[in-house]
């Protein structure tokens, strides 16, 4: 297990490519995703626009789309790629420990 990582309880094999999930970890709510290209990323789960749940949204390429108003965040940097949000979300590194999905939290 990575030194600073937290096990999400997610199994990589349970997550379909091109989707995101909500994961509660260490008092934080995260949106964890696997792109079609096979890359894992994680960002804060709450949309900075109006509190939408990003983990319940869609993943389009590298972009997480908020289900509430369609705002988009980059899954790897947390930067805003489509309005109406303007404030970025925090992003976290994700690694795999065997089949276990692990998020590095500061």
């Amino acid at each position, binding site marked *: 297990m990575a030194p600073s990582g937290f096990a999400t309880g997610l199994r990589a094999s349970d997550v379909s490519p091109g989707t995101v999930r909500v994961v509660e970890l260490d008092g934080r709510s995260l949106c964890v995703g696997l792109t079609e290209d096979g890359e894992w990323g994680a960002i804060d789960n709450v949309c900075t626009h109006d509190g939408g749940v990003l983990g319940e949204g869609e993943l389009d390429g590298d972009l997480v789309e908020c*289900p*509430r*108003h*369609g705002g988009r965040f980059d899954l790897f940097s947390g930067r805003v790629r*489509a*309005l109406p949000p*303007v404030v970025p979300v925090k992003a976290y590194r994700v690694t795999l420990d065997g089949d276990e999905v692990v998020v590095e939290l500061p």
Partner: protein
Amino acid sequence: MALPNPALSQVPTGYKYGWHDAEKPLHIFKKGLNAEIVAEISRIKGEPKWMTDMRLKAYRHFEARPMPTWGGDMSGIDFQDIFYYVTGTDKAVQSWDDVPDYIRRTYDRLGIPEAEKKYLAGVGGQYDSEVVYHNIREDLEKQGVIFLGTDQALKEHEEIFREYFGTIIPANDNKLAALNTAVWSGGSFIYVPPGVHVELPLQAYFRINTENMGQFERTLIIADEGSSVHYVEGCTAPTYSTASLHSAVVEIIVKKGARVRYTTIQNWSHNVYNLVTKRAVAYEDAVMEWVDGNLGSHLTMKYPSIYLLGERAHGEVLSIAFAGDGQHQDAGGKVIHAAPNTTSLITSKSISKGTGRTSYRGLVKVYPGCAKSKSTVRCDALILSDEARSDTYPYMEIDEEDVTIGHEATVSKVGSEQLFYLMSRGLSEAEASAMIVNGFIEPIVKELPMEYAVEMNRLIQLQMEGAVG
């Protein structure tokens, strides 16, 4: 309340006269909306797969989202009772005789030339500005400016189109934006290269394609660093549309140091629901101005917005709303301050007459960290009759301390002393009222291109005389 019934049926002319394009499957000419029709629209336009997918996804969002519970009364909209794709020639009104009386009278009183009248009423034919349009295009091309219909722009400039389309107003932003993203057709695409200043206001008016009358126009404007452009759409003369739902989306990107002004004068016939989503982002040192005139339609809901994303960006919304009998203008503006030292100004002037109703609805939002930002909102409403109504709903969300945010509104009637004074100088009551109303809206009218300003003033005069509408 029952809407005026457009005299003609909505059967396209092509069909009536037996003309029929063998390539187009017949089912597209039915009313109503479903995923197949959305896919078909995309297929007919010959769009790339990503756009087709985007339309279909937007259609899913449209189905899932509820209608807004605030604003005007939209209960009269039946989404299944609309043609979602009609080609240019099909849109033409059968004949001049079918154009409502009040519109024909206004044209006469405003002195609109014959050819233009027909164009505005959508009565077949083409407006003879063809030559003018081509000359303008050549000039622009020399500067590297792209000014095309949106459909064409998607074909010829796919890369830049894809980079920005839907990033300012995503499909799922609201129900009408989702509808537009699914069935959009027509609208303008403008790209201005860095440092280029387009001197002449670009007008949708000059584009021949009849998607001008489009129900679901989609406009995208990108002003690159240090550039400037002024875009004008609509016109003061009443525009007759058989289509009862107009739901356009306008996205604008104003890059660092650039400047964009977007002027709209809308005077749709009184059967129209005009529900529009317009939003711009302004980066560092950029300036964005919305000049918005709402004169027509049965119900308009429109709140041009500006997101100030870079330091020292400035946004302005100048809004005029006029509501006569049975009309409801629910308009205003939104500014979101998301960077320090940003400034904004919203000025709204509204007039309600007869049984009309005007509502100002606006938002000033300041995110934390936007120190030294300033915003002023000024809404004035004039109620001209006892049965008219005026509302003001100004929202403010201020989360940064080091700012100066202010909002002022007044509601008034035409002062009897003012009227008396003018009438004692020989003006009739209608003339005096017109003068006062024109004076009331003067600060905004003076920002309009001249021919619009002149027409606007004349239109107000006609309205005050009760001669039309």
